[in-house]
């Protein structure tokens, strides 16, 4: 599904990611741990093709297409989707409008389909009629992002900190819908969707099963392993110690 090879990324002239390699197969969900500032979000934004993230070296291949220089919307058309951690407020553009856009429809109205999707995330019609992200709470932002993804139904979904600023009850709900979006409820051989989840706290991991986990430090993937082990190590020992415990001196190519 996604193949990242020797990726080096600069933001405003500063190198944030260096020589990063990562493969995510069809039907796989990977988790990326790492402290603030390690380059996690930069990686997602680069994969999505935001212009201020400059790829200075390396190739990103998605569904066998070299997307390294494709504009964002072309990548989205190929099947990429993203749940943003801090999405911008857009005045006058309602959440319901965003759902229509994500679904690729030109409708003005919020129709029954949208309302039905929203219901599953405990989102009311009033909430659909609010300007997107304007005055949303942490939990509301997450649910709004996931609602848009439900409408968009991408094949590969990136989640930027889906658990930050969300109360316990909502984490469970979000985990459940994420699992569904990523085919986690299907038998492994029947899974088509892939995902990359970034988490700082790891609390979402109690609600979604992943296939592989990585720890990112200083712009590289410093260690990889089974999600259970890595999560446990990160939670108990912190990021750097976890990397040490992985006992690998050189960078790991995460396969």
């Amino acid at each position, binding site marked *: 599904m996604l193949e990242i090879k020797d990726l080096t990324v600069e933001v405003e002239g500063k190198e944030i990611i260096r020589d990063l390699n990562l493969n995510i197969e069809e039907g796989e969900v990977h988790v990326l741990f790492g402290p603030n500032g390690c380059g996690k979000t930069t990686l997602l934004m680069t994969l*999505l093709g935001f*212009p201020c993230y400059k790829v200075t070296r390396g190739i990103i291949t998605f569904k066998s297409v070299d997307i390294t220089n494709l504009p964002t919307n072309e990548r*989205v058309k190929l099947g990429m989707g993203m749940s*943003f951690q801090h999405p911008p407020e*857009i005045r006058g553009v309602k959440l319901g*409008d965003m759902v229509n856009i*994500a679904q690729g429809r030109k409708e003005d109205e919020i129709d029954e389909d949208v309302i039905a999707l929203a219901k599953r995330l405990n989102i009311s019609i009033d909430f659909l009629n609010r300007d997107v992200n304007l005055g949303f709470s942490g939990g509301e932002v997450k649910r709004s992002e996931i609602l848009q993804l439900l409408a968009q139904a991408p094949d590969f979904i990136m989640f930027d900190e889906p658990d930050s600023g969300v109360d316990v009850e909502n984490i469970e709900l979000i985990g459940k819908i994420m699992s569904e979006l990523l085919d986690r409820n299907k038998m492994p051989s029947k899974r088509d969707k892939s995902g990359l989840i970034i988490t700082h706290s790891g609390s979402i991991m109690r609600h979604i099963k992943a296939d592989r986990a990585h720890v990112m430090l200083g712009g590289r993937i410093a260690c990889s392993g089974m999600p259970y082990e890595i999560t446990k190590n990160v939670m108990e020992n912190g990021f750097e110690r976890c990397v040490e415990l992985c006992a690998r001196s050189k960078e790991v190519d995460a396969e």
Partner: protein
Amino acid sequence: MTKKETIERAERAKTKKAALGEDIAIDAYIVGKEHPSLNSLDEFPAEYQQDLLDAGIEPTEKDRSGSFLQRDCSVVFSTAKYPGLELMSTTDALKEHDWLKEYLWKAVPVDQDKYTAEVELGQTHGYFIRSEAGKKVTMPVQSCLFISSDKIGQKVHNIIIAEEDSELHIITGCSVSHAVNSALHLGVSEFYVKKGAKIKFTMIHNWSRGMEVRPRSAVMIEDEGTFISNYILMTPVKSLQMYPTAYCVGRNARATFQTIIYAHGDTKIDSGSRAVLRGEGSRSEIISRVIATDNAQVIARSDVIGEGTNAKGHIECRGLMLSDTAELDSIPELKATRKELDLSHEAAIGKVAEEEIQYLMARGLSEEEATSVIIRGFLNVDITGLPDALARETKKMFDMCLEKVM
């Protein structure tokens, strides 16, 4: 004030320049020829039908309680279909109602400037709309002031009266034929909202590059009266200056102005809304959204003057700049003359933010589509207080105007 005194005052103000806006040489414009009356709006020449539609006028008169059309300086159509609604040219109304002269120049001073003076001295009709006491005319009345000939100076005096506990919904469009290179529109509009009455007024200006426009509007609102104005301008105009003023004189009188302007080309606009809160507990809300692009120059003013006890006024004006050669001045003003009141304003001018575009692109839109969605959103003022049908109509007109510019 007798007619003679009014004329004398107008004569004295004939050369009085307006406080705002560049000076226009009125003499350059003419009255033009008389146009024949129509039996129905769809008899209006086919070449102009689209211009009517663009100004929100429904040629079939469907879902309208009455229609009025003035072409250049001739009233060519006027009919009221709803009991309790009066609709005719101001000229005819003055013949029919002796009392109407008492309403002339009560809200707008005849000697305000040379333009008001000119309307008194060289008036060419205008419309008179009145709802009888207690009558709710909720199906919109439509009126259109249309310019079809070059060099025309259209000088109208409109009087709108909502008698006690009545309701009036008005859609008015000012439009101009594509064939017109230069013309002048002077429009005096005086609104009287009596006790417990309501006027909801949606105005679309569909001008063109050669138009010079000087509306002069004022509203008198009595106890528990409500006035809501929606103004939309999406086409270029050579020069437009206006500062409609609502006088909330009665207790709990309310005024709302919502203005949407998309200024492009070499458009020059100086447009404001003012509310004078004299009545106890009177309220006003002024909302404006202005987009300036190309070489447009826009001054967006808003002014609330609080004089009555517990008066409350709020101004919210937002601007969006789409070009480095455009200019936008946003000037909100508040004035208070007593302690028990509450006035506030927020003003902001910004750009189309890169991260908003990227966010929309991440949902599948191209950069161009994303920009268009953001601009639409920016202009998307929730039209408060309008009944569903009128809100739908207004939104339809807004969408139509926007489609033309995008």
